């Protein structure tokens, strides 16, 4: 289970930083040389649940996921993975999570087997168990035919499967996915979605951000929508439709965004 409690993240801006947002409007998150990327975001994800993290570009989704994954430290608040606090014991948290992003790369001069094995060892998978674990993963993901080729020689879809295997090699309890289908063709994206669906059956806790509403409809038990670093909605897909005032999820999404601070910002830019 993941519990996020009043999580906040502020970045110090360099002296040369211009005021205002990338889109040209006045960004409410910026105060002099501070940028409040996240403000008191709280939510829970139960074991076996898939939570969709939604929001427009620059809303703070990646900052939230990076903070939860312990890549960066929170400025305020905290989060707990099955009771383990990200502030108090980040290394123990890292042992329990698997992180996959659309922009995650591979070591081009290693083979899928070498790369997955590397991450397995880094995550403390016992050496005696690792080869068997890799074989099972490669069989599930149908990767055996290219397991020993160099990553540089693989197609985009194959590479994404290597990333999935890398994410799951240590059998994490919590999976964090940051726009995992970004830039993938339909075939490769379908593979990722199938993998996420499969995780539900194994009682894993899944948190994933996406811009694709069909993925939300297909996979998510619940949804958290953030805009300008603040949570603007939390509920299931049906509740999102109701709150957004439209049965079509993309229009409901826009409807919810139209009520928040971000709407003013975007209007300013327009």
């Amino acid at each position: 289970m993941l519990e996020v409690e009043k999580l906040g993240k502020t970045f110090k801006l360099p002296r040369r930083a211009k005021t205002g947002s990338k889109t040209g409007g006045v960004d409410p998150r910026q105060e002099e040389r501070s940028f409040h990327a996240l403000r008191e975001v709280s939510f829970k994800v139960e074991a076996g649940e898939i939570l969709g993290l939604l929001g427009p570009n620059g809303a703070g989704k990646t900052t939230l996921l990076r903070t939860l994954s312990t890549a960066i430290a929170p400025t305020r608040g905290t989060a707990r993975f099955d009771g383990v606090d990200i502030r108090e014991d980040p290394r123990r948290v890292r042992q329990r999570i698997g992180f996959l992003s659309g922009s995650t790369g591979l070591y081009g001069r290693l083979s899928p087997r070498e790369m997955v094995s590397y991450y397995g060892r880094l995550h403390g998978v016992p050496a005696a168990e690792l080869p068997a674990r890799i074989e099972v993963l490669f069989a599930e993901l149908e990767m055996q035919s290219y397991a020993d080729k160099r990553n540089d020689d693989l197609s985009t879809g194959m590479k994404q499967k290597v990333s999935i295997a890398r994410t799951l090699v240590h059998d994490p309890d919590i999976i964090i996915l940051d726009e995992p289908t970004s830039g993938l063709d339909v075939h490769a994206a379908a593979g990722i979605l199938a993998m996420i669906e499969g995780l539900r059956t194994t009682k894993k806790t899944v948190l994933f951000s996406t811009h694709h509403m069909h993925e939300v409809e297909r996979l998510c038990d619940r949804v958290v929508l953030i805009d300008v670093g603040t949570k603007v909605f939390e509920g299931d897909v049906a509740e999102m439709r109701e709150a957004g005032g439209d049965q079509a999820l993309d229009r409901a999404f826009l409807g919810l965004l139209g009520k928040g601070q971000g709407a003013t910002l975007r209007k300013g830019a327009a």
Partner: protein
Amino acid sequence: MKGFSALGIVARKEFVEMIRDRKTLFFMIVLPVVIIPLLGNVVIDFTMDAAKEEATKTLEYAVFDDVGEPEVEAALERAPAFEKVELGSRDAIKEAIAADEIDFALVLPEVDRTSEPLTVELHFDNASQTSSVSKRVHGALAGYGEQLREAKLAEVGATTAQARKLLLEPMAVVERGTATAREVAGEVAGGMLPYIFIMFALLGALYPAIDLGAGEKERGTLETLLLAPIRRRDIVLGKFLVIFGAGVVSATLVVITITVWIMAKMESVGGGAGELLSTIGPLDMLLAWVVVLPITAVFAAILLSISIYAKSFKEAQSYSAPLQILAILPAMAPMLPGVELGWGTAMIPVTNVSLAIKEIIKGTIDPMMLVAIVASSSVIAGVLLGLCTWWFSREEVLFRQ
């Protein structure tokens, strides 16, 4: 997971990736093993060929004799590989030399022979570094000059060799050099060798450092690596060890290559050059290698810090360019006149290593100073590695926008 084990896992993976990279292998192995001896051979062969050609090529000349001294011209005609050409006027000498129509001209201006010596003006291109004109003309005319001197000495009654010597050299300054042949050789070779060692230590570490830091960011693998449940210090140390190792391999290979090359060349290069090379022994090279180790660690720590800060491979290359200049200039110190190893210069990083290698080759290194240089360079490397680890823990460095 225990720190040492995590460090080993990171280092092993980085090593495997590094040795599969052709560019790294080129800088680390091919350059020191193949290019350096090849370059050395080319330079030596070219220099020897050029000197040989200059010594044997036919020199074309013109003569303008106002005093009527045909023996001067006759002396040149007797000497091998001189050919006279006609030149309209002495005003055309400069232009003719510039246009390569003649190599030199002799002008014998009118003088009062009772009170002044016979003057032979040699006009030639003295800007040419490889020109042997002056040497060869002096050689060709030396015999006739000797004849004239003998005649004059006879006129004043100096008939015996003893009398002639006393008349010509009433005072003789005899040089008695205190330096050994090795010291003389070290002064020449000791300027260049440290520069080569230090440059290769830097070059060997440069490419892996960029790949292991900025390359990791550019590929998008850094974030996942940071999420591994290991200490960031172990990641930095693992990467540092591989970069340091690459620099050491490169420096080692260049030391071995130059040692082998020197031993091989001693056989084929005779004369002063062969004697000079023979004074540098394998033990000197081994000691020079030991001195290069800590400075390689300094380079590895700085390069890794730069690479971690850079957002891309290209940016890391741009940032590391000034470091190359900062390493090259102090490494060249032994080539500068008057720059010697003392407690003052021993405190200047890179320069101290460079000067120490020169003293090792000369055989005049002070052991205390050597220990001080190795120790201070090691301390600097340790401090820089500590800074690099701290650098690697900063979000604004790792996720710089």
